[in-house]
């Protein structure tokens, strides 16, 4: 069970959170302009990185806020958390 540092509430047990998948996949502003391929890219295609991944989490059973996390999927180490709209703290 991870110990996740909610940017708003502080360190909490993983069971209070829900995972939301890869981060920074922005919903296209003009979907109608997109080809089926481009839309599918947004809808389904994922990097599914083994290594440092930026992903979304929600403090579902706490403050209900969504935030981003920098996590190494090869060892589950959480490197950082940051609020929605903020830039990833690491490159």
């Amino acid at each position: 069970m991870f110990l996740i540092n909610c940017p708003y509430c502080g360190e909490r047990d993983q069971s209070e959170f829900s995972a939301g998948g890869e981060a920074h996949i922005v919903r296209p502003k003009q979907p109608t302009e997109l080809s089926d391929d481009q839309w599918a890219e947004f809808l389904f295609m994922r990097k599914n990185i083994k290594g440092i991944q930026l992903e979304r989490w929600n403090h579902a059973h706490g403050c209900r806020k969504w935030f981003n996390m920098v996590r190494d999927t090869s060892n589950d180490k959480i490197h950082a958390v940051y609020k929605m709209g903020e830039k990833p703290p690491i490159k």
Partner: protein
Amino acid sequence: MNKNLRTTNSNFIDQTSRISFKFDGKTLYGFKGDTLASALLANDIHLVGRSFKYHRPRGIMTCGSEEPNAIVQLGNDLSMTEPNTRATEIELYEGLEATSQNCWPSVNFDIGAINNFLSPFLPAAFYYKTFMWPASFWKKYEYFIRKSAGLGKSPTKPDKDIYDHRYLHCDVLIVGGGISGIIAAKIAAQNNLNTVLLDDKNNLGGTTIFQDNECFKINNSYSNEWLKKEIESLNSFKNLTIKKRTTLAAYHSYNYLLARENLTDHLSLDEKKNKIRQRLWKIRAKKVIIASGAMERPLIFNNNDRPGIILSTSIKKYIDYYGVKCGQKISLFTNNDTAYETAISLNKSGVSVNSVIDIRDKSNSAIVKEAEKLGIKIYWKHTVVNTSGYKRINSIELMKLSDDGTAVVENKTKEECDCLGISGGWTPRVHLFTQSGGKLKFIDKDNIFLPDKSVSEQISIGSCNGDFELDDVIKNSIKSIKNFLNINSSDYENLKINCSKETDKKNIWLLPSNKPLGKTKPFLDFQNDSTAKDVKLALREGFKSIEHVKRYTTTGMGTDQGKLSNMHALGIIAETAEVKMSELGTTTFRPPYTPLTFGAIVGRNVGEFFDITRRTPIHEWHVEQKAEFENVGQWKRAWYYPKSKETMYEAVQRESKAARDSAGILDASTLGKIDIQGSDASEFLNRVYTNAWSKLEIGKCRYGLMLNEDGMVYDDGVTTRLGENHYIMTTTTGGAANVLSKLEDYLQTEWPELDVYLTSVTDNYATVSICGPNSKKILSKVIPDLDLSDKEFPHMSFKNALINNIKCRVMRISFTGEHSYEINIQSNYGKSLWEKCIEAGNEFNITPYGTEAMHLLRAEKGFIIAGQDTDGTMTPVDLQMDWIISKKKYDFIGKRSLYRSDTIREDRKQLVGLLTDDPKEVLEEGAQIVAEAKKKPVEMLGHVTSSYFSPNLNKSIALAVVVNGKKLKGQKMFVPMENKTINVTITDTVFLDKENKRLNA
């Protein structure tokens, strides 16, 4: 044969309190403080079980959790019996009953032992190579294989015991109450850290606590005496929690650990009653100190598995700790100094030690000198080549080792004995370290794996970190503890420690014999009967990785998880394959460290607490009315209200008819309700629903359809505009939670610019829905001063109202097609309002109807239920609800997906109505629909999603999805059932009141 095998020099056993117990039906006696194993040994019983494959007689081999052989069935009560318990871990209690496993008819005469003679034909993995002919016979072969496999028996009645959980957060968790653990606990506690110390035994002190030997002294007192005082000193710390009988089961990432505390397993049958049996501690520790010690290794030689062959330090523990002699003529066989401590202890207790057989050329350590002084015979550079005695060892044969240790030379010597102590050195318990994700390194000089890189806030100290000499253990432990906890000084700065140091080392993974390997039985995994030969066979056949060998030979797959066998397996693989141990790597130790009862893992989440039960404010009334309930998610919803002897069908027919003939009342409180406020509320709704919302007037309601981004129908419900920036949205019962978090997600991540706030108010309101031609009359009795005229209060509109001064919201909306109202009132008034409505409706025979009738009524009108008529593959167009897709809106969730090449197809599956040619014939929901009755195989065009007998139309009706259904109205179709084919016709989805007259009736 009642020899006295008890000594009186143990202060851990209370010889004044005698305990009676049964083993294989025979009544025996032991003392308080005994384990089942020590008590059996005291009764001169070594043979306790039969091995897994060859059914060879097996005895007690250890004194702890690594025991591979002495596993028994505990208790014989059908609900309380427990298979595969280790005799070496069971504390003796009054009334204990244990029986041998995996033998028939008895452990002394076991038919299965035939396998022992067939063993030449049953090498490792033989089953992959046979039982293939004839093909159809595998099931028969398998029947016998399954019967002979398995060990103990599962209970066959539900467990009566209770288990529970506790969460625990601490600064420092120390695992293991041996000497290094004790030191760690004291240092941590003295520095005001919130400290927890765990030990799986009922006594702290590890092996040092029974080390009373001239050669081992701390500050001039015997090591065990010194340690006793240290342990006593721990009681003074308030910030130190000590948990005995508590086994660390699993070490997960982020220092999340699971430990099982045994609360009643050691109590007598009466004392156990109504107490929590085991507690699972869920521990989150800032720092973890592993002091889990080391396990003594066996030696691998021919017939090394006979009852009476015991690890040497276990023999020492039995004599020094439990005061039990494992035999009267004991030989010891070793490759290190440990056995000499045992020899000296035995000698002290007056047990004659035949000799110590040592594979080393010599040793000059103090402890060996001490043994020699006592006149104990030592065979240097010798090995045991064979043992005899079927059910109990009675003699051994030894020979001299060649210089390179690969062969034996000169003559055999035979030595009679009733017990053989063996010691192959020590294996640090690195299991927990590896569970935590740490990597190991191999130390060639000691032939051990040690913790290398750690990934969590954690250290290993003492022998689990490779320190085996008393002075190293203490000094290095103190050093690393201080370092780890950032502490400068401790009580232990200048301890004076004397101890015997090992001077010579020698290790031979597989000891040679005078017979060819093929003719010998050098056991590696005692429980699974895998031998050194099996490992070599696996390698010969190309199984090179340890994981392959393990799986192919089942070495280390027993209930002991190979605690004793893994190292030798690795050693033999490395030797045979001529690779370095370090390159070979080790097998992964998976949790749990020792087997963990399901009950403890589940805790109290059983029965009533298996899952949450959600109740509506009106629940009690439904119960009083003997309603049958339906599970909808975690909710309990009234399903139907059977009167006297009514069947479900009859009740539902009556309820549905009454609702249209006069009046029905439904508890709709479970519908999700989301309060929406903010200046962008309308824009927000535009984006989440398929239809347009900006123009919805205040006080009006509108039905909305919500899609997934992939264009498929996700949820639906009515949303009401309460004010300029204020809406209340309703969702499906099952969808409520998901819809809210999905909407929050969009608000927070995609549209942060929107000024909108969402608050769940599902539980704040009870929702009473009244429908039917008389609903208006009834409501006017309940809320006299509310103008219900169609002009003032038309369909799809809302009014605030007061009922006896209590605010409520009344919506005129309908899910049945009848004239109907939904009253939302503060939950705590819900039941009272409900009763008030019933009272007001009595004169109109108002009828409470449940979810089943509700489903029927809406089906008559062709209204969908998301999740029943849709399955995540239906678009609004497929549902023939094109009208609800705003053409004007630029975008909404899922819009783009509706225009993909597959979703724009005209001939997708579409929602239609179905009428059976025989109006009495009610279709089965889920039944498939085809165009040709006879053809096989036949293409399936769709399936029945909802189906009922309509009491109001007096015929069977159904909703279905059918390929190209829109165009097929009037078409004949077939529903092929197992035994018959039902003729149906595709129709419109609306069966009743197409003109919606009843809405305003």
